[in-house]
């Protein structure tokens, strides 16, 4: 008797995506999928009955839009559901599943999902439309006032260049930066709660060379597009509020530490809107243009184009162009240009660091000797940690690049040999144009 079981608990919701393959958002445990109406119905049926005959009996009835024949049911289970690990032939077994490649390393939870779930609801009131508009206007006004004041008193670098950071100052700086960034993450969590999905944990990890804080809002996949964009913007919105509060405090106290914290926040707000790294800008672009798995899709577009270029160079039959949205093609090519620049800058930075390491080491030692012991210890610890993160990040990034290049070369070679074979067969049949 053929029996099939779901690997984990199932939750299905309808999306607002017009594409038939993305009509439903399907959660199987913590994994999330886009699927067609038939797949969603099939999974729902498997969650209720296990035997193939029963599954088929239920799937063949009903309207023709989602009904499936015996063969279709079997084919869908065997070629889609079992290989993807969401269905297995034995109860309670998830089977051999290849998870999506992770993009965050050494991630650790800072605030548990339970705690985030408690704090997010009261904060979500800030996403009521009238409140949000008034808050954005007020905070932007305050920030502009602060920036005008700063411009009148001299540039930001001039304000910082005379600034001698003591241990107390740097502790306050680190603390305020951490609080600002945690508030940024709570912005995502609060928006997620506001629009009806459950936010999970807030954590810390390493993404390329960047130490990052993150909020896991994977449940937001079930939300409509506009709500997802609001979740993406929630972080910058909360950081804007934090900046306005800091600006008011800085205007009142004229504290240099606060100026520095403001600077870190403003730079971070701009960086986070960059769509090429997987920061908030990435999700905004992905959601606005309905391009799920944007990074992978962009890579496929680039590899397909490189394959076509290689075939053209080798004078082989040009392969069929892969249909893709203009927004995806624009992203794919801009992303390639951006990362070429980023990798160049990173390599130059590594070289600069390696070549000036003796001078840096000398300058640091000299500074530690001038400092009180505790301050020197904290400073040395901070430097060692930053250097370790940077070097580790560089190694990881180089690993990513090598793996991506290997993947691209293999894919292009495969495309060329396949076309060569097809071209040979076509030529033998005498239909070569």
């Amino acid at each position, binding site marked *: 008797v053929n029996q099939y079981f779901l690997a984990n608990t199932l939750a299905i919701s309808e999306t607002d995506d017009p594409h*038939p*393959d993305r009509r439903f958002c399907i959660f199987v445990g913590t*994994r*999330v*999928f*886009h*699927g*067609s109406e*038939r*797949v969603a119905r099939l999974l729902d049926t498997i969650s209720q009955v296990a035997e193939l005959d029963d599954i088929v009996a239920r799937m063949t009835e009903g309207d023709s839009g989602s009904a499936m024949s015996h*063969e*279709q049911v*079997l*084919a869908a289970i*065997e070629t*889609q559901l079992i290989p993807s690990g*969401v269905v297995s032939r034995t109860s309670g077994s998830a089977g051999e599943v290849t998870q*999506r490649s992770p993009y*965050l390393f050494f991630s650790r939870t800072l605030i548990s999902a339970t705690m985030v779930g408690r704090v997010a609801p009261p904060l979500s009131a800030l996403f009521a439309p009238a409140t949000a508009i008034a808050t954005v206007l007020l905070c932007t006004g305050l920030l502009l006032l602060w920036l005008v004041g700063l411009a009148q008193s001299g540039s930001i670098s001039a304000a*910082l*260049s005379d*600034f001698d*950071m003591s241990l107390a100052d740097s502790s306050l700086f680190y603390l305020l*930066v951490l609080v600002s960034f945690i508030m940024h*993450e709570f912005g*995502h969590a609060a928006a997620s709660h506001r629009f009806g999905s459950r936010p999970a944990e807030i954590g810390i*990890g390493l993404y390329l*060379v*960047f*130490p*990052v*804080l*993150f909020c896991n*809002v*994977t449940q*937001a*996949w079930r939300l409509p597009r506009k709500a997802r964009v609001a979740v*993406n913007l929630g*972080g910058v919105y909360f950081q804007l509020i934090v900046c306005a509060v800091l600006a008011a405090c800085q205007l009142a106290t004229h504290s240099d530490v606060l100026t*520095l914290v403001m600077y870190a926040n403003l730079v*971070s707000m701009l*960086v*986070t809107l960059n769509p090429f790294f997987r*920061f*908030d800008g990435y*999700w905004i672009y992905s959601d606005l243009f309905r391009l*799920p*798995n944007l*990074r992978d899709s962009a890579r496929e577009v680039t590899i397909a184009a490189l394959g076509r270029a290689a075939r053209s160079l080798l004078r082989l039959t040009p392969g069929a162009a892969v249909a893709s949205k203009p927004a995806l093609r624009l992203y794919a090519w801009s992303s390639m240009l951006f990362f070429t620049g980023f990798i160049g800058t990173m390599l130059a930075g590594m070289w*600069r660091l390696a070549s*000036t390491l003796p*001078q*840096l080491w000398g*300058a640091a030692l000299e*500074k530690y000797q001038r400092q009180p012991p505790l301050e020197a210890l904290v*400073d040395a610890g*901070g430097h060692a940690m*930053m*250097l370790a993160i*940077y070097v580790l990040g560089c190694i990881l990034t180089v690993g990513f690049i090598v793996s991506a290049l290997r993947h691209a070369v293999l894919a292009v070679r495969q495309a060329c040999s396949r076309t060569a074979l097809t071209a040979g067969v076509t030529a033998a049949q005498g239909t070569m144009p």
Partner: protein
Amino acid sequence: MDMIVNEQMKNGVEFAEFKLTELEARLEMAALPMADFWYCCKCFNGGCPQD
């Protein structure tokens, strides 16, 4: 059973209709100020040895 599946594939069943695409986890990340930033701030006072 495998034979039936293979037969179906040969007969050109619309597999796109049964497509299940796994989505990436939505981790909304914010980069903490980078190492360069910290070094620069630390060096404001005494000048950066890299310059």
